[in-house]
């Protein structure tokens, strides 16, 4: 494999690995979605 090949593979793999890690870290660092703010809690109006 020549230098161009190494650069291409490192860049391609790098972009994808960084993007994947970024997405999953961001995904798992979100707050729990099932928590509701007080105003959003449904109350029985009957």
């Amino acid at each position: 494999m020549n230098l161009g090949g190494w650069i291409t593979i490192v860049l391609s793999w790098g972009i994808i690995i960084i993007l994947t890690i970024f997405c999953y870290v961001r995904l798992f660092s979100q707050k729990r979605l099932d928590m509701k703010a007080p105003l959003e809690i449904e109350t029985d109006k009957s």
Partner: protein
Amino acid sequence: MAQKVQLERENWGSKLGVILAVAGSAVGLGNFLRFPVQAASHGGGAFMIPYFLAFLLMGIPIAWVEWTLGRYGGRHGHGTGPGVYHVITGGKRWAKYLGATAILGPLGIFFYYCYVEGWTLSYAIFSLTGEYRQVADPAHMSSFLSGFQGVENNQYFNGPWVAYAAFALTFVINFYFIYRGVVHGIERLNKVALPLMGIIGLMLLVRIMTLGAPLANQPDQNFTNGLGFMWNPDFAALKDASVWLAAAGQIFFTLSIGMGSMMAYASYLRAKDDVTLSSLTANSTNEFFEVIIGGSIVIPASFMFFGAVGAQSVAQGGSFNLSFVTMPLIFNQMGGGPFIGCLWFVLLFLAGITSSVSLLQPAITFLEDELKWTRQQAVVVLGILSFLVCNFIIFTLAKGSMDEMDFWAGTMLPVWNALIEVALFAWIFGLVKGFREFDLGSDLRVPRFFSFIIRFVTPGFLIAILVAWFMQQGIPVLTLRGVNPANHLVIWATRLILLGVLTTLILLIITARRRGRFIKPEELR
């Protein structure tokens, strides 16, 4: 009212579940077979420049649009083209009929994909039982495949019955998961299958990397040079427009854009579930499987065992040859070949089944949403229809029915569907409203420059692909150029089947409209 409708729809059990389901839908046989062939034959590493540009300018924005349209449609009780297009155009009379092709496309692909999926299951078992162990050269391995497919009777097989049994099993497995529903079927399947595919893919990668130079008399045929064969850039290739087109096409297929599955899956999101980060995560997962695993197995392995000339001819031989002829020959020469071969075909089977269930989902969602059928009714009717058409494909394979179905359902319709989606989203729904929808519950804000991309660049890309493919392939296919006259009847029968399904879908849309299933424009506002 929208809230009330939404309560009747199923919701995904978790955010990771829907991401894995969409990624599972996208990761298919093409990730491991089509991508390496495309890259190796279109400039090697240089191919990645148009590939990443197409990913940024077309793949990511269309995926955002599809997820957003799906979630928006789901809020109004619609998860497929007809209903979603109806609501985003404010109830335009013609819009719902445009959506018929968004159900026809994935269904048409399922009609043949399920059979191919059965082949991978059979070959996984053949690898362990040593069925193709004694086959030593490409000509005989091709003959083995033809006999297995039932294209010819030979010393290996007498009719397509083994392939048929595998198809029947695969068919039942697909409908089992569909019948179980979004959470208990599709989500559970993908939560197991995707991590398993990751593990198997990495195991295969490690095995190929540690082969060294497998042929003692060819020390240069090693993994590093195999990677070089695939990745060394030929920048001169970028002057050729077909390379850019091939890269855009690959991005299109790999992300399952325009299939309708992503939209149907997203319609089961809750009203304020994130779509932007989830979509990007599913796309990046797909890219991991494609570029890192798919790009490092078949072509480097072919180079290591057949050399540069052999690998070149393998790349030109197409995906099926690569998977069912070249790879078995490689496994026959490799230490631990039976086990590694089994892993390879299990990987393909898992990639196939996570995609094929997603191909069925738009039709199921349509029947449930617009005709208010129960899942049982939808599964039974769709099962009967699919079974009949699959049988037609199986028994007319040698006469070109699969290629014809693949051209219309798998090549032209997804591009057409994506173009319709983006055009309606950007030009009729409007980007101000569109970005508001992107941002609703968003965990990742879409950069505003994507407004220009979605409005002009993405549709431009899609029109270019559609026109170029129609000119290059559409006209020869339509006029049956180079097709054996003996096969014309089957080709026309395949077209009639597609036309028949399309007509049925339009009639069902009319029925749904008459039953008042499409919300009136006044209620939309």
